[in-house]
């Protein structure tokens, strides 16, 4: 007999209470890598690795409802942030390999991801290609049984400590986007790769530039077929089922609850502002749950952009309110785990993974069915 959802919640809660690390996440570099891998290893030992991954690939195969409950308990337990060095591997690269990878690729990489033995980073954006990803110029030229890559990627989070990269390169310069790109597994220790960390305004070396100078990658590392990289990249979206952001959305709502608790009665305007944010958090959460549950059996639709837009802009308003609530010089705001850092980091919410403007375009065109605007 299958476990009831209440029993599942209790099991998740008990396990998290016993296993969530007491130490805060390190800021960057090897300490961060070690911390993230150790936490993944702990989750794997506890049977909580690859929550949304199918069981035949070593995952938990949780239902959407179970995922929601897990993330509620995860946020409640103040477990390590989900949007960290393990995010690309578990939510992007792994699912892509499951959907499009060869048996050899899956057999080699999936266990490493689940068991916390490898960090992945993403090599999509370029200095001239952010929102307009299809214009990317990094070249891959077939030479025997290798792909020789030259070019530059940027905004690659955790490239300085990653083992592997999901790398999107142009392999047919004459073809349209749908037949021009290849998605390839790039070992980050290959000769010819140079990584330069970038100091972000939030204080950490969170992003990197990656330079490729005659980097030779075996053709057997191409995923989904040569010149078929656009379809491979898009396939991942069908797997995420809109659940990857649940942990962040739920955590935000809980943070507003805490802020409301900290707001004295002598500040009625601040209370009203926080109450409004709590309402908005509830709205974003409701929309995210609805979308996730709707996508149980199918591919998520463009409404995912509504969820993304709502929680990204909400996260910015919440961190701005926190600074006004506690004061810029307060202990709650100071330091790398304080709201000051979170406030600055939240600027990236409406840029990374598709800017707020791109999300609005998608909502206008694909959800509302309006005519496509000029690009």
């Amino acid at each position: 007999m299958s476990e009831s959802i209440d029993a599942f919640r209790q099991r998740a809660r008990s396990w998290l209470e016993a296993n969530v690390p007491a130490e805060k996440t390190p800021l960057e570099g090897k300490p961060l890598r070690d911390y993230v891998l150790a936490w993944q290893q702990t989750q794997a030992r506890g049977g909580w690795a690859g929550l949304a991954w199918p069981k035949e690939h070593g995952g938990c195969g949780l239902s959407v409802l179970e995922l929601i409950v897990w993330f509620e308990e995860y946020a409640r337990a103040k477990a390590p942030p989900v949007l960290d060095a393990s995010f690309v591997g578990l939510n992007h690269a792994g699912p892509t390999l499951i959907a499009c990878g060869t048996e050899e690729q899956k057999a080699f990489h999936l266990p490493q991801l689940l068991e916390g033995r490898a960090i992945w980073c993403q090599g999509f954006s370029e200095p001239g290609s952010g929102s307009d990803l299809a214009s990317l110029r990094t070249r891959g030229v077939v030479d025997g049984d290798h792909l020789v890559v030259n070019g530059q990627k940027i905004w690659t989070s955790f490239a300085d400590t990653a083992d592997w990269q999901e790398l999107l390169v142009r392999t047919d310069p004459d073809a349209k986007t749908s037949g021009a790109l290849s998605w390839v597994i790039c070992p980050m220790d290959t000769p010819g790769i140079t990584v330069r960390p970038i100091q972000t305004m939030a204080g950490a070396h969170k992003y990197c530039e990656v330079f490729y100078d005659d980097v030779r990658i075996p053709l057997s590392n191409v995923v989904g077929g040569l010149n078929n990289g656009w379809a491979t990249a898009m396939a991942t979206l069908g797997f995420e089922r809109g659940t990857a952001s649940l942990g962040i959305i739920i955590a935000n709502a809980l943070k507003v609850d805490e802020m409301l608790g900290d707001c004295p009665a002598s500040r009625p305007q601040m209370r009203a502002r926080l109450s409004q944010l709590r309402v908005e958090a509830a709205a974003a959460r409701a929309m995210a749950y609805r979308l996730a549950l709707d996508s149980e059996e199918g591919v998520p639709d463009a409404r995912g952009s509504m969820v993304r837009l709502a929680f990204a802009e909400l996260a910015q308003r919440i961190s701005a309110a926190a600074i006004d609530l506690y004061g810029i010089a307060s202990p709650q705001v100071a330091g790398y785990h304080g709201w000051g850092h979170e406030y600055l980091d939240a600027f990236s919410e409406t840029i990374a993974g598709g800017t707020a403007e791109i999300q609005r375009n998608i909502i206008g065109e694909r959800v509302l069915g309006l005519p496509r605007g000029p690009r």
Partner: protein
Amino acid sequence: MNYELNDDQAGILAGLDQLLAAHAGGPSGEPENFFYGAALDTALAESGFLDIARIDGFGPLDAALVVERLARLPQVVEAAASALIAPLLPLEPGERPLALVSGDATRPARFLPVARHLLVLRQNDALLVSMEGTSIEPVESLMAYPYGRLDSLNGLSAQTLANAVDIRRRWRIALAAEAAGCMAAALDTVIEHVRTRQAFGRPLGAFQAIQHRLAMAAETAESAKWLAFRAAWSDGEADAAIAAGFVQERIARFTYDLHQFSGAMGLTLEFPLHLWTYRLRALAGELGGASMQARAAAQAVWGVA
């Protein structure tokens, strides 16, 4: 209020620009949260521009013009308190930099590590604390000022001042003028970026979604500037509270939009935008923030809090 500069004001700004030309250029070396202009500070102190309000025939408006212009620089120097508040205090010209803190004297204060005096603004009075021979506990901050904090007032020479109302008014004018200069420089930086940065085959600035919000940002920056100058001109309670409250209320939206249109580049220290937006964020919280200024404005205009 006349919206055109008179000959004296035009002359002051031309002279200031000449001095600043020798200090042009952004920070060199590794990108940092902020860039303290030590050499510029010395040159300003010697030039007398920060004492303009003390000179017969000149006043707070001339000081605000100087403060607004200096706030546009990538480097940060203590100018607003020296130019607009110090003339109200028992300080000689050139006795600066001056750090400010409201309420508790041990709260972190901008410029305290380089300040000769700390002014503690309390509800009904103020304390002028000499920092001579005092060691300052530095405060690590992501905001773009050198911050420092006193352990306590014990053993420090402090003078109690009764003119808290005047100090608070000038502080509001000072922060409004400084914020207006930061906004102007930040907006210029982003306008240049969206003119040149291409996406989907054309400059970012060609997209209406971006144009509209930058137009709103320009409206904010322009309003902030003229409200600040008006407040400095009238030196009145209501104008000062309105100028400070307006700019503080707009800072969050303004900075988010400007960073948004700078893309990921705008999130790095290598793009100079943070040199102004970090200052704006710090200014947004001073003197209790926008809601406190709104209450003060209501009190000054209608006699209701």
